[in-house]
Each structure stands twice: as structure tokens, then as C-alpha cells.
């Protein structure tokens, strides 16, 4: 990996292609959840082109994927602004695919919340709260990684997540009680 990165830094396009191949899925999904599949391709491509240009500035303080997510995050935000998308960043992944109670999980555990209710609750969160929920819960980033992507301290991410879950709990409380 290091050698691949080093070669890509020296301008080896094939090494850069390998990096793209390795991280494309994650970056594409990251973009698609924010912008939708139509804009995700452009955003992912721009992310890797920008990464190729600025690879020398990558200090390897964090993981390469986190660094790429940071670039993708900025591109998503810029694209969203440029195209004056009515939908804010982070909303694409909440697009309705159906309503009603969620199907039982694979392990047979009973669903605690209704999908539509959860979607509504997530929509009601502030953008900053929704963003950290997406980064941590969906993208699987640690607090530190999410903090780097967003450019905020890790404590802020922790605090936002705490409040986001508090809000979700409050929004879903009646159902929780019913389910319980």
C-alpha cells in the first residue's frame, strides 16, 4: 500500500488507478448517500482527480480512506451548492423506499422502530447532527475519523452524536414504549 502510495505520489498513474480501484466503492457510496446516484459518479471522479493532484500533501496522519472522505465531503458540499440542490447534503440516503414497519432482522430480532418514523426523525435532525450520524453509523468512521472529515474536534463529534441520539430517542419514544 505504501509503495503504491509512494508510486502514485511520484506520478505513477497505474498506482493511482490501483488506489482508485481499492477505494472507489467506499467513496462512491459516501457521495451517493449525500447526492444521489446521478451526481455521485461525478463527485467520486472529482474526488480521485483532486486526490491525485494533492497526493503529495497527504501526510499519512490519518488513513487514506479518511483523507479521501474529507475530499469527497468537500466536493459533495460544493456540488450541492453549485447545482442548488434543494436537498441538503446527507439527505439522499433517507429517500423513501417504502413505508411501514421494517422487516425483521436476519437474526430474527424484533424491530424496535418503524422505518418511516425513523426516517422522519432523522429528517428532523439538524444537518450537523445528521452528518455525524451518517459518518459514524453508516460509514463506520470513528469519532476521530469523522472529526477529520468534518474538520471539527473529536469532542464535537461525540457531543453531536449524543444529542442526535437523544433527539431520535425523544422522537421515537412513544413507539419505543409501545414496542417495549
Amino acid at each position: 500500500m505504501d509503495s503504491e502510495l509512494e508510486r502514485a505520489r511520484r506520478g505513477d498513474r497505474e498506482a493511482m488507478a490501483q488506489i482508485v480501484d481499492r477505494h472507489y466503492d467506499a467513496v462512491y457510496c459516501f457521495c451517493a448517500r449525500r447526492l444521489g446516484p446521478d451526481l455521485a459518479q461525478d463527485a467520486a471522479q472529482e474526488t480521485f482527480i483532486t486526490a491525485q493532484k494533492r497526493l503529495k500533501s497527504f501526510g499519512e496522519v490519518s488513513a487514506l480512506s479518511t483523507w479521501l472522505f474529507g475530499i469527497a465531503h468537500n466536493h459533495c458540499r460544493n456540488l450541492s451548492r453549485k447545482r442548488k440542490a434543494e436537498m441538503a447534503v446527507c439527505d439522499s440516503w433517507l429517500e423513501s423506499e417504502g413505508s411501514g414497519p421494517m422487516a425483521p432482522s436476519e437474526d430474527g430480532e424484533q424491530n424496535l422502530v418503524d422505518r418511516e418514523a425513523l426516517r422522519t426523525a432523522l429528517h428532523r435532525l439538524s444537518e450537523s447532527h445528521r452528518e455525524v450520524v451518517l459518518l459514524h453509523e453508516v460509514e463506520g468512521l470513528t469519532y476521530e475519523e469523522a472529526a477529520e472529515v468534518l474538520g471539527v474536534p473529536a469532542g464535537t463529534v461525540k457531543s453531536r452524536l449524543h444529542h442526535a441520539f437523544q433527539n431520535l430517542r425523544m422522537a421515537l419514544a412513544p413507539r419505543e414504549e409501545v414496542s417495549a
Partner: protein
Amino acid sequence: MNDVREDLKAFVDGELTAERMAEVQAAVDADPELQKEVSFMKALGFEIRRLAQEPKVEGRAKALSAVRSRKAFWLFTPGGALKTAFGLGCAALIWLAFIPFLSRSGEFSAMDVGSSPSSSAEMAAENQFSRKEWDGGGALSESDAEMERAKASTDDFNARTPAAGESPQNSAAGAGRGLYSPNLPNAPAAMPQAQGGAQTKEAKPEESAKRSDSTTQYRSRSEAARMVIQNADLRVKVESVETAMDDALKIALSVGGFVENSSSTNSAKDLTGLVIIRVPSGTFETVLKRLGELGERIGPPNVNSVDVTKQYADFAGRLKVLHAEEDSYVTMLRGARKIGEILEIKDRLSQVRQEIQSLEEQRIALKDQSMLSTITAQFEQKKAVGEPAPPQDWAEETWAGAVNGMKSAGRFLGQVLIVLFVYAPLWLPATAVAYWLVRKSRVHAAS
């Protein structure tokens, strides 16, 4: 309890320190409410992950192609560096090619500034010379042919009736040299035009060396044929008027000229001296320059040049006709028998001879004027003798200073603009390239 609740999410996510994890774990174990909350958070996280469907990945090949085909910034590629070096080399060559051109044009400018008002005759000669070069150097122009005709008639006339002050020897010597030389008063100083041509060549040896023999010969011939009356007035501010006038006399004598008139005026405020000198026309520009160097020249010299070649040739033609008429009258007089006829012929003969004499004198005067140029130099003392500088009004002084400052600023601005204009072939492309690079980098940064 509130503190534990605040860290509950981080506890679920395993983002707490080991110590804090142990504390929260103990609190959760002791409190069923917290256990219920932890369970809900875990379930909520699970549901959120389930809600976020994994998108179908598309566009991988496009991204790979974009990355593979993307060109590095041209300056940092080997080819780009080579192109840059080549471009810089070309720019250097252009620069080197421009330097001699600019410096040469600068010389020309300086020469023109220094002597342009006084060198109209030379410029005319240059133009004539250039035109003849374009004509091929061999074909004679209309004026040349006219001069040749005038030369023939003059030679014929001189051979028959030498004018006052002329010697057959001079005529014979001049006949072999040029158009008007037969009539020169004395042979050594007789060819000011030719001398002028020689001196011009001496003043610019490098230029004359560059020119071919044929063109040099042609130039000499054309200069010898020209008759130009040159007059100039100049004003010079000098430290000492007396010394300057002496120097002017010396300058005139050193080139074979003389002082025609000299006077000085000493008023209450100013001491001025006026010197009119006559110098061989070939030394006209040299003398003018040397006089200007005696002090601080006030403005450019006022130079007036008149080409009298055609007028001189016309005199020659008219003289020929008059001499023929004179001959016929003389013949008639020899054959006349009656007193009345003799008196009438003599009267006519006298008129013709007077006319011949008048024309001869005019021709000599014309030649004299063309041979010897007139320079009127007015010298002004820098500081009035014996008089302290008159006190000036402070407002006037300030006004004059401000006006001078504005003039200087305007002149400086003009110089800057001229320099920018002249050097535009160098800085304009460089600026355009720089602008293009900056714009390109901004576009890349924005994208």
C-alpha cells in the same frame, strides 16, 4: 447520572477511555434504565445502518480512465520542462536579437535629437542616396540629367570666357572633378561639398566601411552636385560670453571659416554676445555641435537649408544664352557702318553685358552661400555680471517649482509609456502567459 448518560453513546461505540468505560459499565450494570437505554441505542444504530441502503456502485471505469489519462501539470512533466526550456531559450534569443536593434535605434534617435534640425541637407542627401540605391544606382534621375546639361553648358561657357577671379587652371582642374568645381576661386578649398562628404565619412567610419565602393562613389558624386545654402541660429547660455565668443572665433578659424560679425550687449540684467560666422558647408554640423558644446544650449538650433542647385543651373543656362547674344552683337558691331546702328548695338551690347555681369555675381553669391554656411550664435551669460540675483516672489517660485515638477512627472510618465510600448513584444506575451497560468491554476483549484 447525567454525566454517564452523556457518555452513554460513546460507551456503546467504544469511544471512551478504558477507565471511563469501566465507570460507565459499572453504572449501567447498576441501573436497569441505563441498560434499557443502551439497548435502544444499539438497536437504533442497527436500524439506521439498515435504513441506509448500500448504493449500487457505478462509474468505476470512468474514474479509473480519468485518473489514468489525466496529464500532470505541463511544467512538471519532462516534456513540459523541455518545452519550457525551449521557450525560455527562444525568448532569450529574441531578447538578444532585440538588444542591438534597440541600441542602434537609440543611436539613431540620439543622433537625430542632437542634429536633426541642422541636418536637413544631409537627410536630403541620404534620401537622394537611398532613392538612387533603389533605382539601381546606375540610372540617372531627372535632376542629375539636368545637372549634367548645366555642367556641359557651364564648362563650355567657362572655357570661352573665364569669370572674374577664376583661373583657367582651376577651370581645368574642376572640369575633371565635378559639376561646379571649375568656377571655384581656389582649388585647395574649392570643394566644400566634396570635403563635407569626406568629413561625413570620417565622422562615421564604421558606416562608410559598410557601404560598397560603388555606392560611396555615387554618394560623393551626388553630394558634389548638390548646392545647399545652410543657415542656423542657436542660443547658448555660457559662463563667460567673452570666452565663448573667442572660442567661437577659434572654431570658425579651425575649420577654414571666419567671423562675419561679432557684437556684445551689456544691459543692466544680461550680458549677451552675438557672433555670425561663416564656415565651409561641409563643416556646418560639426561647427554647430561644437558651438552648442560651449555652454548650455537653449532649445534646439534653428536650421534653415535651401537647395539652390536648380537655380544655379538656371543661371548657367541663361548665361550661355546671353553670351551667345553678346557674340552676335559683337559680330553685328563689327559689320555696322552707320553711327546710329553702332550706337544702338553698343547700347544693346552694354545691356547684355550688364545682365551677364549681374547673373555672374548672383551665381558667385549663390555659390559662396552654398560653400560657406552661416551660423548665428547668441551667447548669454548664465548670471548677470555685477548684479545680484533679483529676489523672486515665493508664490512665483512655488508656482514655477510645481509646474516644473508636473512637467517632470509628465515626462517621466511619457518615458515609462514609451519604454513599455517599445518593450511590449517582450513583456506582453510573458504577462499573457502568466495570466493564463494563474487563471488555469485557479480553475483547477476551484474544480
